[in-house]
């Protein structure tokens, strides 16, 4: 198979998701090494409108299937269309963001192509001979596996969101072309029928570049308002340890860790969280970690970059005030 790199551009409600641009930037670097071009596939009505934005981030071509029944996620049709495109454009490498949608879809694509796949990678390197080599954190972040696909083509990888930088290449609009969905609508046996959103739209920890998390140290559900008061001026999402989710203080969608979400924000502030290995599994790849804990021996300090040993009920409001002052 060829030197071209195919990228799946995830959209939601007509907008491109940021992890799609991250995957695209990684694809551009890989294609430059392989000597191929970058082709993007986007599905649903209005997808061709992204030609400019995608071109600016390194896409040479944009393929779209604009059937409105693809506006919401249709796993079998999405996977079949991406797999068909991989053949059509002679892709040597297929990159998909490791979002909820990408994780659900990419392995089906790899199986359709009878090829190898690397999941949720945090580093990616293509060599001129076409070998794909990636890093994936394993065993709760206690080790990194260096994994390769030497010969199977195309190689498929899903990329952990928030890890790969978005780069503008200054390119013009991508050349557009349309494709047919590779599965007819009446052959589809499962599909997304609607999205249920919380009454108050909250930033999701999986998408945030700053996260403020609360653990058992906050003592009660009502005290999450302290965490929110710090999150707000930072434009941060609110995270939580499992202990407080299990206690019913906050919804599971906020949980960070082994059995919650794996996040890699620029800044992670852990308030009243001890730093159990299963929590670290979800956040140890954050760029900068701040821990606020009254126990100087808490394991969280071993992986934090900055620590304040103190009572969070005193420290967190002061920190919130300092950030607000900074903003004003």
């Amino acid at each position, binding site marked *: 198979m060829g030197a071209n790199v195919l990228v799946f551009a995830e959209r939601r409600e007509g907008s491109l998701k940021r992890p799609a641009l991250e995957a695209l930037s990684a694809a551009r670097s890989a294609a430059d090494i392989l000597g191929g071009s970058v082709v993007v596939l986007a599905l649903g009505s209005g997808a061709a409108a992204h030609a400019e934005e995608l071109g600016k981030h390194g896409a040479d071509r944009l393929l779209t299937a604009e059937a409105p029944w693809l506006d919401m996620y249709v796993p079998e049709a999405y996977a079949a269309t991406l797999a068909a495109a991989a053949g059509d454009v002679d892709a040597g490498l297929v990159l998909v963001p490791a979002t909820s949608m990408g994780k659900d879809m990419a392995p089906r694509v790899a199986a359709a192509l009878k090829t190898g*796949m690397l999941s949720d990678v945090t580093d990616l390197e293509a060599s001129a001979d076409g070998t794909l080599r990636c890093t994936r954190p*394993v065993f709760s972040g206690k080790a990194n596996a260096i994994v390769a696909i030497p010969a199977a083509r195309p190689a498929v990888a899903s990329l952990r969101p928030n890890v790969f930088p978005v780069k503008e290449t200054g390119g013009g609009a991508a050349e557009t072309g349309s494709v047919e969905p590779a599965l007819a609508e009446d052959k589809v046996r499962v599909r997304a029928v609607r999205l249920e959103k*919380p009454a108050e739209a909250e930033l999701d920890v999986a998408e945030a570049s700053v996260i403020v998390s609360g653990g058992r140290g906050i003592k009660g559900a009502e005290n999450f308002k302290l965490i929110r008061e710090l999150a707000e001026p930072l434009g941060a999402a609110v995270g939580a340890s499992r202990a407080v989710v299990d206690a019913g203080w906050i919804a599971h969608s906020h949980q960070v860790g082994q059995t919650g979400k794996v996040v890699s924000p620029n800044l992670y502030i852990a308030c009243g969280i001890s730093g159990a290995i299963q929590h670290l599994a979800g956040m140890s790849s954050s760029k900068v970690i701040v821990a606020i804990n009254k126990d100087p021996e808490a394991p969280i300090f071993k992986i934090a970059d900055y*620590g304040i040993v103190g009572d969070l009920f005193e420290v967190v409001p002061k920190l919130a005030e300092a950030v607000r002052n900074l903003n004003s």
Partner: protein
Amino acid sequence: MKILVGLKHVPDTETKVKVADDGVSLVEAGIKFVMSPYDEYAVEEALKLKEAAGEGEVLLVCAGPESATATLRQGLAMGADRAVLIQDPRFDRADGLVRASALASVATQESPDLVLLGKQGVGTDESQTVPMLGELLDLPHVSAVGTLEIVDGRFTAHREIEGAVEVMEGSLPAILGCEKGLNEPRYASLKGIMQAKKKTIDVRSAADAGIEDGALGEGKMVVWEKLDLPAPRSGARILEGEIDDQVVELVRCLREEEKVI
């Protein structure tokens, strides 16, 4: 209702990771292996569905080493009816597609109404088996199912996505990956444990499952080359002085040095 459940025997999350001399294997001595936590939700859901239907069968399958028998026994003790072990230690280092093919061979033979797996195997966290099995069997799949309702051969599954819950509707047979919160897995009762001892585990070889020897060895598509232990972080810079001064210094560092706020 016949339900097939895939079980993975994995190192407990508290495992201390030590890398063996070959640079890529785990030193397994002293590691406790358990049923992958998400698979417990799969077993529980299967048992609940069977109980609600008042009839049916829950069949467990694992592709793995002989020691994985312990995880199959645990599933039997929880109440599953039968178990198949496709025995080969090399499955623990096999391509996603090869593992999925092994499971697919049992599914093809048994024609279950539903296949339940964990959304991911804890430790290696590849999340590949659910969608791959869907493709191999030409059946629909949904990974990370947080709630499940089945009525007259159709299912509604909720899955948590970024900032929302996605409601999926589809038809059976299907492959579903179970997420935390789907149910509260039961503990095996003493009676269950006693009964499980009497149930036989059907042991097959990789060849019986249609897996060619090469696919587990030289012919692997994905190769783990190395297991690196991240350099231990040097530990936090603990700020000093009055809390007010610490806060000022922290904000300065985050803005001026780290440039993250």
